[in-house]
C-alpha cells in the first residue's frame, strides 16, 4: 500500500508539472522565437545603409559556407544595393566565438555598418570590442583597407581585434568573389592581373610555371610572353614585413627582362604598419625598379620612415634575384674580387702569405660577396676571411670577418656604411657612446667560436633596428653575419 502511494504521488507530481511546463511553453515559444528574430532584424537594419529602407532577403542557402566562418548572408531583392553578412570571429576566448554583422553598401562599395551581436570575451578586455567607438569606425570605410586590416584596435582587446580582422578578411574575400561583379570594383584576380600588366605592359601572356620553384620566397613564377617570344620573367614572392617580430607576410610581384634588368615591382599585400608601408605600396616605388640591373638593388631608394620595411623588401628581392640568376639562368652571381679593398685582410689577426678567393667553387649566398682562403709560408691553410654585405638604414653595409681553422672568429670590420646612430643614443638600452661603426656591439661577434656566437642569439640595438636587424625577419647585420657563420660551418669549416 505504501509503495503504491509513493509511486502514485511521484507520477502524479511529474505529470502535473509536465502539463504546466508544456502549457507555459506553448504560451511563450512564439514570443521567444520572435525575440530572436527581432534582435537579428534590428541588427540588419542597423548595419544596412541609412538610405535603404527595403526588405533584406536571406540568401544563405545559395552559397557553400562550410569552409568559412560565415553564418548568414542577406541582400536586397535585386542584389545591387546592400549585402549583410553575419559572421564569427575568434577572439581571446577562442572557444566562444564573437558573432557580428557587417553591412556593405553595393552602390558606394563601402561598409555601411558593423555590429557585434554576441561577445563572450572577458570584461575589460575582449569585451571592449563591443564598444560603439570600435564598431562605428567601420561605417563608411572602403573595402580595401578593411581587407588589409587597417582597423584601429581597442585597448585590452588586441587578440579580439586580431580575430575580427582575420574574420573580416575572409568575409571581404567572399564578398569580392560573390558580389565582385558589377559596380563592386575589381576582384582579387583583376587586381593581381593589373599589377602584372603594370610590370610588363607589352606582355600578351603570362605562362605560369607549374613546377614549384625550390625557394621559400617564391610563390609563383611566370614566363612572360609577347606572342611566341619570351620577353621576361615574373615572380610572385613573399617576404617578412618589418612591423612585427616574426614577421607578417607581404606579397609582391617583381619582373625581370631578358637583359637581366628589373622591369618593375608591385606590392600586392602588406601587413606592415600603415603609414610606413604606404610608400612601398605606391606605384612610384615599384616604378623605381625599372631598368635597374640585377645586383644593383642597392640603388633603389627606400623611404625614410619605414626604412625597415624597405630593407625587408630588398632582402627578399635579393633572394629572388639570386634564385633567378643561379637556378633559372644557370649563371654565377657577381663575386667581386679581391683584395682590391686591402682593408679586408685586417679581419684576420695574422698576416698571411697568400689570400686566394675560393668563392667561385662554392655555393652562392646572398649575404656573401667573397670568400678568401688564407695560407702561411708553408702553404698550410690558416683560416678564411668572409667579405659580406647587408642592407642598412643608409644603404648597403659591407663587412669582413675572419675565422681561423679552429673555428674561432677574429675581427669583424666594417668596410662600407652610411649609418646614423644618433637616434640609438636616445634609447636607454644602448649603452655604448660611440656611433656606428665604432660600437661595442660589434665586439659581440669577435674572438669566440662560431658555435658559441650562434648559440648566444645576439640581440639587436634598440633605435638601430634596421642596421642591426632581426633574426626572425631575416634582415640586417644579425642575419647577414649569422648567415656567414652558418655558411662557414656547412661549406668551409665545420663540414669537414
Amino acid at each position: 500500500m505504501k509503495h503504491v502511494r509513493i509511486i502514485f504521488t511521484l507520477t502524479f507530481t511529474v505529470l502535473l508539472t509536465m502539463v504546466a511546463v508544456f502549457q507555459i511553453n506553448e504560451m511563450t515559444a512564439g514570443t521567444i522565437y520572435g525575440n530572436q528574430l527581432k534582435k537579428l532584424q534590428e541588427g540588419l537594419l542597423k548595419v544596412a545603409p541609412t538610405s535603404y529602407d527595403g526588405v533584406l532577403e536571406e540568401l544563405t542557402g545559395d552559397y557553400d559556407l562550410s569552409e568559412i566562418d560565415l553564418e548568414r548572408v542577406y541582400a536586397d531583392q535585386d542584389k545591387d544595393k546592400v549585402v549583410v553578412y553575419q559572421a564569427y570571429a575568434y577572439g581571446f576566448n577562442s572557444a566562444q566565438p564573437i558573432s557580428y554583422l557587417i553591412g556593405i553598401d553595393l552602390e558606394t562599395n563601402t561598409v555601411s555598418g558593423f555590429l557585434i551581436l554576441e561577445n563572450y570575451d572577458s570584461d575589460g578586455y575582449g569585451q571592449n570590442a563591443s564598444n560603439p567607438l570600435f564598431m562605428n569606425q567601420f561605417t563608411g570605410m572602403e573595402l580595401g583597407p578593411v581587407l588589409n586590416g587597417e582597423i584601429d584596435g581597442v585597448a585590452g582587446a588586441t587578440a579580439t581585434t586580431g580575430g575580427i580582422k582575420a574574420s573580416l578578411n575572409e568575409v571581404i574575400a567572399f564578398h569580392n568573389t560573390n558580389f565582385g561583379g558589377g559596380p563592386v570594383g575589381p576582384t582579387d584576380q583583376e587586381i593581381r592581373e593589373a599589377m602584372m600588366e603594370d610590370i610588363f605592359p607589352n606582355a600578351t601572356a603570362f605562362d605560369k610555371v607549374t613546377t614549384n620553384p625550390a625557394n621559400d620566397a617564391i610563390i609563383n613564377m611566370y614566363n612572360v610572353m609577347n606572342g611566341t617570344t619570351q620577353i621576361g620573367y615574373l615572380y610572385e614572392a613573399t617576404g617578412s614585413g618589418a612591423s612585427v617580430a616574426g614577421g607578417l607576410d607581404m606579397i609582391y610581384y617583381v619582373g625581370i627582362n631578358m637583359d637581366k634588368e628589373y622591369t618593375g615591382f608591385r606590392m600586392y599585400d602588406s601587413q606592415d604598419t600603415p603609414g610606413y608601408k604606404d610608400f612601398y605600396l605606391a606605384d612610384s616605388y615599384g616604378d623605381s625598379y625599372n631598368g635597374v640591373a640585377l645586383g644593383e638593388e642597392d640603388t633603389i631608394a627606400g623611404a625614410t620612415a619605414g626604412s625597415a620595411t624597405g630593407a625587408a623588401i630588398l632582402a627578399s628581392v635579393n633572394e629572388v634575384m639570386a634564385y633567378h640568376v643561379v637556378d633559372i639562368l644557370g649563371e654565377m652571381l657577381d663575386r667581386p674580387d679581391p683584395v682590391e679593398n686591402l682593408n679586408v685582410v685586417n679581419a684576420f689577426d695574422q698576416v698571411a702569405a697568400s689570400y686566394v678567393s675560393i668563392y667561385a667553387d662554392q655555393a652562392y649566398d646572398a649575404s656573401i660577396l667573397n670568400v678568401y682562403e688564407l695560407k702561411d709560408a708553408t702553404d698550410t691553410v690558416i683560416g678564411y676571411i668572409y667579405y659580406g654585405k647587408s642592407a642598412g638604414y643608409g644603404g648597403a653595409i659591407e663587412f669582413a670577418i675572419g675565422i681561423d681553422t679552429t673555428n674561432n672568429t677574429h675581427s669583424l670590420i666594417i668596410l662600407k656604411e652610411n649609418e646614423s646612430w644618433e637616434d640609438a643614443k636616445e634609447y636607454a638600452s644602448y649603452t655604448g657612446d660611440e656611433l656606428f661603426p665604432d660600437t661595442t656591439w660589434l665586439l659581440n661577434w669577435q674572438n669566440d667560436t662560431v658555435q658559441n656566437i650562434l648559440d648566444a642569439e645576439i640581440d639587436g640595438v634598440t633605435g638601430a633596428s634596421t642596421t642591426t636587424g632581426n633574426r626572425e625577419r631575416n634582415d640586417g647585420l644579425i642575419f647577414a653575419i649569422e648567415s656567414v657563420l652558418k655558411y662557414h660551418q656547412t661549406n668551409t669549416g665545420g663540414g669537414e
Partner: protein
Amino acid sequence: MARRQKSIKEVFSAGLFKQNPTFVQFLGMCPTLAVTKSVESALGMGAGVIFVLVMSNLIISLIRNFVPKEVRIPIYIVIIASLVTILEMFMKAYTPELASSLGTFLSLIVVNCLILGRAEAFASKNNPIRSVVDGFGMALGFTGGITIIAIFRELFGAGSLLGYSIIPEQYQVGILVQAAGAFLVFGILVSQVNRIRMNKEERSEVA
C-alpha cells in the same frame, strides 16, 4: 519544552537580517558571485529567486501532508525544476536581454541550496501563509545581499550603476568585475558584516 512559534513578522524579518542567506547562512553562493557583475543582473536574479522561492514554498507547503517522507526530496526537486523552467521561459520571452546575461545561472536556481533548504526546513513543516512569508523574506534577503555586492563591484569595477557612468575610467578597478574580484568584494563585505554582528553580541552580553 515546546518552542514558541515565531510570529509572522519574525518569520519575515529572519530572512532579511538574522538569517540572511547571503551574509549569514552563505546559501546559494554560486549566483552570489557569478551574477553580481552588474546591479541589473543581480536584481534580475533576485526577482527570479523571489518567484521560485515563494512559489515553491507555497506549493510544497500545500502538499506537505500528502507527500510520502521517503520521496519528498525528489518531489521537491521536480517542483523546483519545473518552476525554474517556467521562469526561464517567461524571462526569455519578456526580458530576453536579462535572460542572456544570467545565462546558465538562471537554470541553476534549481540547485540553489536556498530553495531546497527552505522547502525542507520550513515549507514542509508550516502552513502556506507562513511559508509564503518565509519564502518572500528569505528571497528578499538574498536579493538585498547580492545587490549590495553588485553595487560595489559595478560602481568601483566598471564605474557605473545600472548602466549609468559615474566614475571615470582611470579610477576604475577593473579586476572587480572579473571573476576574481567577486571573491575579494564578497570576502571584505562578509568580514565587515561579521564585525557588526560581533559588536552587537558583545553589547548584548554586557547588557
